[in-house]
């Protein structure tokens, strides 16, 4: 299957041409965040303190991950995606501020799918549990905010050809529903 190479920061045009089922290789800077970091970021947005966010979401990608600790001499620990639905209550606020993609695994809520249509964003699934392999795509890693959260701190990763699949596109398509339709035995 053909793979589409994406380099951050992303524009509306970059994500608008993506369709569910396509394989994507992400390059450039991406940011990490899980439950606790999302709660802090959305609390800031709600308090009108957008300028205090760890990064400007415009054109960026957020990766739902809590890496394992980095062994000496390595760039980062194992770092596969975590289940995305736990970030659903927070994700629309970030898409509204221009976030172009989130990376995780598992289903998104109708509200998030709607927000992606409205603000032109996509949801990409990395392979859950392929954490040792994914770590090889990460060329540099540093914590940029919330170090007190440990694995849940916000990291800045520089990635090279990080593979994933488009699950939700800007048209509201959902690969988790369409894939099942193709392979279900009637």
């Amino acid at each position, binding site marked *: *299957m053909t793979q589409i190479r994406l380099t951050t920061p992303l524009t509306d045009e970059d994500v608008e041409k993506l369709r569910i089922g396509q394989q994507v290789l992400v390059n450039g800077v991406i940011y990490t965040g899980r439950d606790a970091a999302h709660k802090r970021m959305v609390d800031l947005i709600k308090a009108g303190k957008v300028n205090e966010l760890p990064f400007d979401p415009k054109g960026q990608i957020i990766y739902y991950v809590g890496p*394992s600790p980095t062994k000496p001499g390595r760039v980062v620990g194992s770092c*596969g995606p975590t*289940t995305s639905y736990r970030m659903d209550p927070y994700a629309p606020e970030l898409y509204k501020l221009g976030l172009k993609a989130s990376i995780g*695994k*598992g*289903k998104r809520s109708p509200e998030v799918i709607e927000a992606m249509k409205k603000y032109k964003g996509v949801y990409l699934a990395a392979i859950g549990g392929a*954490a040792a392999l994914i770590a090889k795509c990460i060329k540099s890693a540093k914590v940029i905010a919330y170090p007190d959260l440990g694995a849940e701190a916000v990291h800045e990763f520089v990635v090279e050809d990080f593979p994933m699949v488009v699950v939700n596109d800007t048209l509201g398509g959902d690969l988790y529903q369409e894939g*099942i339709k193709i392979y279900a035995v009637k």
Partner: protein
Amino acid sequence: MCQEANFLLGEDVMEAFKKGCETEVSNTGKEILQILIKNAEIAREEQVPMCQDCGYAVVFLELGQDVHIEGGDLYEAITEGVRKGYTDGYLRKSIVGHPLERKNTGDNTPPVIHTKIVPGENLKITLAPKGGGSENMSQIKMMKPADGVEGVKNFVIEVAKNAGPNPCPPVILGVGIGGTMEKAALIAKEALLREIGSVNEDPEMAKLEAELLEKINNLGIGPQGLGGRTFCLAVHIKTYAAHIASLPVAVNINCHAARHKEVVL
């Protein structure tokens, strides 16, 4: 043990991946299974965790009744082992001390310890690190005896369908039928320890396992929920006597990183 369990995926799981590569009808599904084999190889060679979620340390103890343990508290010793294993092995600490206050304990303790007293003079320790993603998709239902085997089947299939891509498929389903509420949940988790590919001792349950496996894979969810026929690698059922009024059914889901390590002392 904590480190070995996290670095080395069992041969039974690897075999199931390889078998899946041959039988999977979706190309994306096939590719995913190949990637998972590669991931396990990297983890083994480089001694790194196969998954960043190094799990809740669930420990099953089988303590021989003739064993006398001297020199301290056995549970404290196990806790210390988990602390040391997760810290020295650069494994992720995923435990918060209070479910509502949610402050990380920093060393992946405490473990969850299940103890069984058995005849003999051995102590068997099984460590099964359990990831949060698949645990979150597990369910228990107190069914009516009138629901019978059809009701049980429908519930198990419903749990699988509802879980979809979330628990990192291909998964293993541990199904506990009978007992009380907590017993059903415990035997469901014990069922996950059985080797993939082994046949249930109870021929009726073996048939039920095969039927459920086929029906669940025919849902079309596939590896990672992206479509295909390899959603589930195995269904393992364990049963226990039930009350005349009850039919408890617990479905415990394990992701493909089905980790366990066993020692006998």
